[in-house]
């Protein structure tokens, strides 16, 4: 069974068809996907701007990392859940969509970067984050995150233009 067979089966399923043809569910999912994005990507963006030193220099980084963590996770849970359902509704259509794959690729890289950063630096932020000069690895993680989440949003918004 190829990947195409799987997405074809998904899109042909009853639940996928119902979601795709629904009057309110699909647009509402898109709306909540956007709201989840504003919280998850929004707060990640703020963290990245602080890590890279572009903004918020007077806000203590350790607090930013420690206190925003759960809101970022919450926002991502909403974004991934709604995103997953949106994919379910149009699996086969998205399979043939270039921006979709570029978006998935960027998300994967951004998530790996976040995971590495969290395991290596994030969880013990109070030990290094309030130094005047941040470790190079932390600044680099900020730039990678900033770039790939922005690209994921750019490609995500481009999906409907290439359907």
């Amino acid at each position, binding site marked *: 069974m190829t990947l195409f067979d799987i997405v074809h089966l998904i899109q042909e399923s009853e639940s996928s068809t119902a979601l795709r043809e629904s009057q309110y569910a699909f*647009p509402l999912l*898109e*709306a909540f996907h*956007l*709201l989840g*994005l*504003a*919280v998850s*990507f*929004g*707060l990640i*963006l*703020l963290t990245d*701007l602080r890590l890279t030193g572009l*903004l*918020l*220099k*007077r*806000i*203590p980084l350790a*607090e*930013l990392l420690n*206190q*925003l963590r759960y*809101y970022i996770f919450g926002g991502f849970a909403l974004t991934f859940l709604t995103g997953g359902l949106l994919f379910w509704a149009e699996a086969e259509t998205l399979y043939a969509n270039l921006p979709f794959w570029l978006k998935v690729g960027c998300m994967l890289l951004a998530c790996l970067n976040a995971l590495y950063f969290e395991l290596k630096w994030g969880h013990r932020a109070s030990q290094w984050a309030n130094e005047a000069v941040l470790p190079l690895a932390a600044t680099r993680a900020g730039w990678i995150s900033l770039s790939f989440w*922005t690209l994921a*949003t*750019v490609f995500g*918004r*481009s999906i409907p*233009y290439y359907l």
Partner: protein
Amino acid sequence: MTFVQILGWVQDSYLITQLRGAHHLVIEITEVLHVIGLVSFLAALVLVNLRLLGFGLRSVPHPQIAAAVAPLLWGGLALTVLTGTTLFLSGPVRYFYNSAFIPKMAVLGLALLVQLTLYRKVTRSEQVAPWLAQGSAVLSLSLWLGVGLFGRAIGYV
């Protein structure tokens, strides 16, 4: 001359016809920038509101947070309004007759009014009654999320 006639005149003007006839990437990039601007603006707003609600960064006084995110807040809003205006001008009559557009503009007007009056006052005062801080945060978040929801609805009605 009615308002719609004016919009029709704008829609048929040389410049706007050029905009509509331009490469599809022009409108697409404008849409992308519209979302990036919105996310930047909302990110700044969410951070200040989390502090006003007492949910995070409690060791930092809220005027300091509001001042720190101000470039992102106003930069994001400027980008959103600028790209939004461009999108509207690409087909003003079409947008005017879209049943989600007028509600969006109404909520946007209200949100901006609150942002420039109550919100500005609250985020600039060191001492704010907790009920006022929390009330402003809830009002601000609801209004701006409303703008986002009606905005997303424009593509569907």
